[in-house]
């Protein structure tokens, strides 16, 4: 299989499938063959649904041939983080506690992609319950970063980052509570998009923190994320966090460029050693790219990263512990070390702490919205730096060193994670572009403008 097919974009594959120049069956067969060849070492898939995928590909091929083309996802192979329910396909959320769990229904997000004609290649490794990792004592071993096997692939949507970087799928779905879409995107050199809170349904996705969890697309370009988001977005009455909003075409303005766009620099979020020198250099270089594109770039005042992290950590612990308390009491030894250690802080969070964290969140949202009166989007570093060595990531690493990805979860704001450089060790670096809640289209436009002006997202790991 040539790299051209493995690394085909959803947009280009869709054009070729629609024109009859590419067969969904041939594309699916090629990706299955590539997974067979290289994923044994990477471990990005925990379950491959080869037979189901080929059956769906044959159906798509027949539908397209009859003129029943459904749109840009028809016949496109994708894969899902192991946290998404898939009817009849095992869904473990990466835990021994759920090792035999087979859902009866599909997660709404997957049902929407399937309805748009997407093909399921399989389920992708997640750190346990979307909160653990990187753990070697879990149901599955951690997916390996294709840029360097000893370095963390990011979590918790690890398998999604790895499979996309390795050319094993054209798109994927991840979840994000504190950075779980954007960190694997950053560490693996792919593109991840966390939509506004309430834009994409979470029904049928295993929760960690009901008020911070987001579902979003991961791909190799901003345009591909927008194509996936077009199918994903929409109200779902079954998700209490879902909001009824006007339907938006997220691709409509994606080539609108950055001229005249007002870009705020979130340097405050990069302070206090939260970001490496190389990560900061990539962020500053990205600001220059936007200046070169004709954007108005200026510093803006935002609350400190520590404030965002305090809210994120306390809320996640309180809400996550409520989900896991019973299992921790009765089956605690079946959790991985990292997950059990983090969740075991739950009994130490008092009701007053949780309420104060919610109040802090309200204040942070107010301050953010005030800051965004003068800009359209916010540019920030995408990660603490290049991927760390996996064995050095401790149980409380992101408690000790807050993640620059946490603010967007606290704000419920859209955030794109975009490749923006390479470290001296040959590992990807990234930026984030954040926006106003429910102004996802402007974030996608800005991120696409950056990708059109740079080639970092086209870099491939040495496989």
């Amino acid at each position, binding site marked *: 299989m040539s790299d051209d097919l493995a690394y085909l974009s959803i947009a280009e594959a869709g054009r070729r499938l629609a024109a009859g120049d590419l067969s969904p069956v041939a594309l699916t067969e090629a990706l299955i063959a590539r997974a067979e060849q290289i994923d044994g070492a990477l471990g990005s898939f925990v379950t491959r649904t080869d037979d189901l995928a080929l059956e769906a590909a044959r159906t798509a091929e027949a539908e397209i041939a009859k003129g029943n083309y459904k749109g840009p996802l028809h016949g496109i192979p994708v894969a899902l983080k192991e946290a998404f329910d898939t009817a009849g396909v095992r869904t473990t959320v990466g835990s021994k506690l759920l090792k035999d769990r087979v859902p009866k229904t599909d997660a709404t997000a997957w049902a929407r992609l399937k309805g748009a004609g997407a093909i399921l290649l399989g389920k992708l490794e997640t750190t346990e319950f979307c909160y653990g990792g990187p753990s070697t004592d879990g149901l599955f071993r951690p997916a390996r970063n294709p840029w360097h096997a000893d370095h963390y692939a990011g979590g918790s949507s690890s398998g999604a980052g790895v499979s996309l970087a390795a050319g094993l799928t054209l798109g994927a779905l991840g979840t994000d509570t504190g950075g779980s879409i954007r960190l694997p995107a950053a560490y693996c050199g792919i593109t991840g998009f966390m939509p506004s809170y309430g834009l994409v349904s979470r029904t049928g996705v295993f929760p960690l923190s009901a008020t911070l969890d987001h579902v979003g697309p991961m791909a190799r370009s901003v345009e591909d994320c927008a194509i996936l988001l077009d199918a994903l977005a929409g109200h779902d009455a079954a998700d209490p966090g879902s909001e009824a909003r006007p339907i938006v075409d997220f691709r409509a303005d994606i080539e609108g460029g950055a001229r005249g766009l007002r870009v705020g620099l979130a340097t405050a979020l990069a302070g206090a050693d939260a970001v490496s020198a190389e990560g900061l250099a990539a962020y500053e270089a990205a600001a220059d790219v936007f200046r070169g594109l004709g954007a108005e770039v200026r510093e803006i005042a935002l609350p400190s990263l*520590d404030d965002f992290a*305090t809210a994120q*950590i*306390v809320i996640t*612990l309180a809400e996550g512990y409520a989900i896991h*308390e019973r299992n*921790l*009491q009765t089956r*605690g030894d079946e959790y991985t*070390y990292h997950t*059990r*250690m*983090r969740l*075991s*802080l*739950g*009994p*130490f*969070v*008092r009701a*007053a*702490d949780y309420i*104060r*964290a919610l*109040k*802090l969140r309200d204040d942070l949202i107010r301050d953010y919205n005030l800051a965004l009166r003068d800009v359209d989007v916010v540019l920030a570093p995408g990660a603490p730096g290049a991927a760390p060595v996996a064995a050095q990531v*401790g*149980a*409380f690493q992101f*408690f*000790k060193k807050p993640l620059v990805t946490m603010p967007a979860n606290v704000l419920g704001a859209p955030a794109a994670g975009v490749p923006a450089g390479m470290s001296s060790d040959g590992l990807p670096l990234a930026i984030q572009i954040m926006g106003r809640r429910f102004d996802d289209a402007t974030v996608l436009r800005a991120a696409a403008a950056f990708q059109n002006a740079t080639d970092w997202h086209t870099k491939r790991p040495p496989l």
Partner: protein
Amino acid sequence: MPTDRKDVEQTLRSAGLSVPAEDLDELTEGVAILRRLAETLAQRDADMGDDDA
């Protein structure tokens, strides 16, 4: 909020949880971080109360 190893163990036991003895030191470190966050939240609340007054 306890940051002493024994107090941490006692709080866990009261919640019906158990952690292997060899993991208690690291968990106690996590509880200490959490305590600092809780103190920050409480101080912030107090400061805002002062502002309101």
